[in-house]
């Protein structure tokens, strides 16, 4: 491994290509911790936005007008405002009112910058997911739902066992798109000092004046990360395909 690191040092000395994140342990640790934060942040946001989408789409079909309006209000609010402004709003406007405890001289809020990033980005992507799942639900033939009802299924059970599994298969391509966007949107979290990859890369290129190199690294890492997600989603899509249903 050391030989690889030394090769990158040689690359800098000989050709001026400064990939400091490979040959200097301090910068390497910084970059890896940024990468890990990006991965954790992405996974957390993917999970919660998915849950929000499923629950939201169910509530949207509620018989109560009030519930439907709440969901509609939520979607309009999060879909019609830029995610960066949402992050700032959550962190600086709402963050002040969250309870905090004394951590020896400073107030450690119960929800830190990472927490706010997860909340904000999940709600942002969740709003889109609700609409994506709704499209899927509307594609389920009403005859199928009526059949389930006549077999004695309750509304919730019909949703879980009949509507959602079918709707989900229709929704997957659109969901795929939105989740790819979500992973890319996590870079915005650098604005509220979440030490993710963009944030660490920024600090590294400021310290080492190697902007082009770090830009290339950022690009490649995101291509790999998003590529993994897309690959996984496609496999999933294939695995749950029902022959003769949908595309």
């Amino acid at each position, binding site marked *: 491994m050391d030989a690889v690191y030394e090769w990158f040092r040689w690359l800098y000395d000989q050709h001026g290509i400064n990939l400091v994140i490979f040959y200097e342990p*301090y910068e390497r640790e910084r970059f890896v911790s940024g990468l890990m934060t990006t991965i954790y942040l992405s996974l957390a946001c993917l999970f919660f936005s998915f849950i929000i989408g499923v629950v939201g789409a169910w509530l949207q079909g509620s018989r109560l007008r009030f519930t439907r309006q709440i969901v509609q209000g939520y979607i309009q609010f999060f879909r019609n405002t830029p995610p960066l402004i949402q992050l700032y709003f959550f962190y*600086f406007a709402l963050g002040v009112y969250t309870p905090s405890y004394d951590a020896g*001289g*400073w107030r450690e809020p119960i929800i830190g910058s990472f927490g706010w990033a997860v909340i904000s980005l999940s709600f942002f992507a969740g709003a889109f997911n609700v609409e994506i799942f709704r499209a899927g639900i509307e594609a389920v033939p009403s005859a199928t739902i009526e059949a389930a009802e006549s077999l004695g299924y309750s509304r919730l059970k019909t949703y879980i066992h009949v509507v959602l599994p079918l709707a989900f298969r229709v929704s997957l391509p659109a969901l795929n798109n939105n989740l790819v966007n979500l992973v890319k949107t996590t870079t915005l979290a650098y*604005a*509220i*000092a979440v030490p993710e990859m963009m944030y660490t890369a920024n600090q590294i290129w400021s310290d080492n004046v190697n902007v082009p190199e770090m830009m290339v690294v950022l690009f490649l890492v995101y291509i790999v990360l998003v590529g993994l997600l897309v690959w996984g989603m496609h496999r999933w899509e294939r695995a749950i395909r029902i022959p003769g249903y949908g595309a």
Partner: protein
Amino acid sequence: MLKRLCAILIATVAAVGLTSVAADAGTLDKIIKRGKIVVGVKADYKPWGFRDTSGAIVGMEPDLAKDVADTLGVELELIPVQSSNRMQFLQQGKIDLMIATMSDRADRRKVVGIIQPNYYTSGTNVMAAKSQGFTRWEDLRGKPVCGKQGAFYNKIVEKRYGVKVVAFVGNAEAKQALKDGRCVAWVYDDSSIMSDLSTPAWADYEMPLPTEDDNPWGIAVPLAERDQLYGRFMSGMIFNWHQSGRLIALEKKWGIQPTAYLQAMHEKFKDWLAK
């Protein structure tokens, strides 16, 4: 026929090549032909460069930029830059000159043409609530300290004192986070902290630590022109600001704590025949 065509083609390419070289020859030429100099300054760094109530960028560095424009007899256009992009702006020709609170560092001299003499100096310090009662840098070990993305001392204090730097995009966000108590202190230039502390909003705060890593600031031109006409001209501008006491006067005008550095430079460059 074909031969002639080829000859014309080659001649055209050569001519285009030559003219583009000629056009690149001097930023100074470009400025004078255009009748305007584009200067990159800070817009969020009171009082060096900030926006007044009308939205215009004012401050000590915009005043210096104005001096340069007046000397050249051209108009002045100010472009706000960030610590993290100012050198790229200059490299890409988006600005002709950079006067943006930049510390003169060896690695930066490889990227932009930093002009001698330096025009100011500052060091690293923190702003913290008086109630914290910090006296030594060691008091900060293991604690979260707000900072600004792209500042070179973030890494230094992290390595030297084990501080956890929480860096924001701009100073406004970093200072808001300090006020919200998300960090125990805000690490920044002592000169900028001083000017903040003189405002009533920060009455309960202080700058309690000894200033570290005093580092002169540099004005920069494109690297290739550092030792050419343009760079030499800027050297002359800065020399004159020191000798005439212009920098000391501006320091006073913008309410900046007087620095020993400017006094020393003023003495050093004093005209030996002047009374």
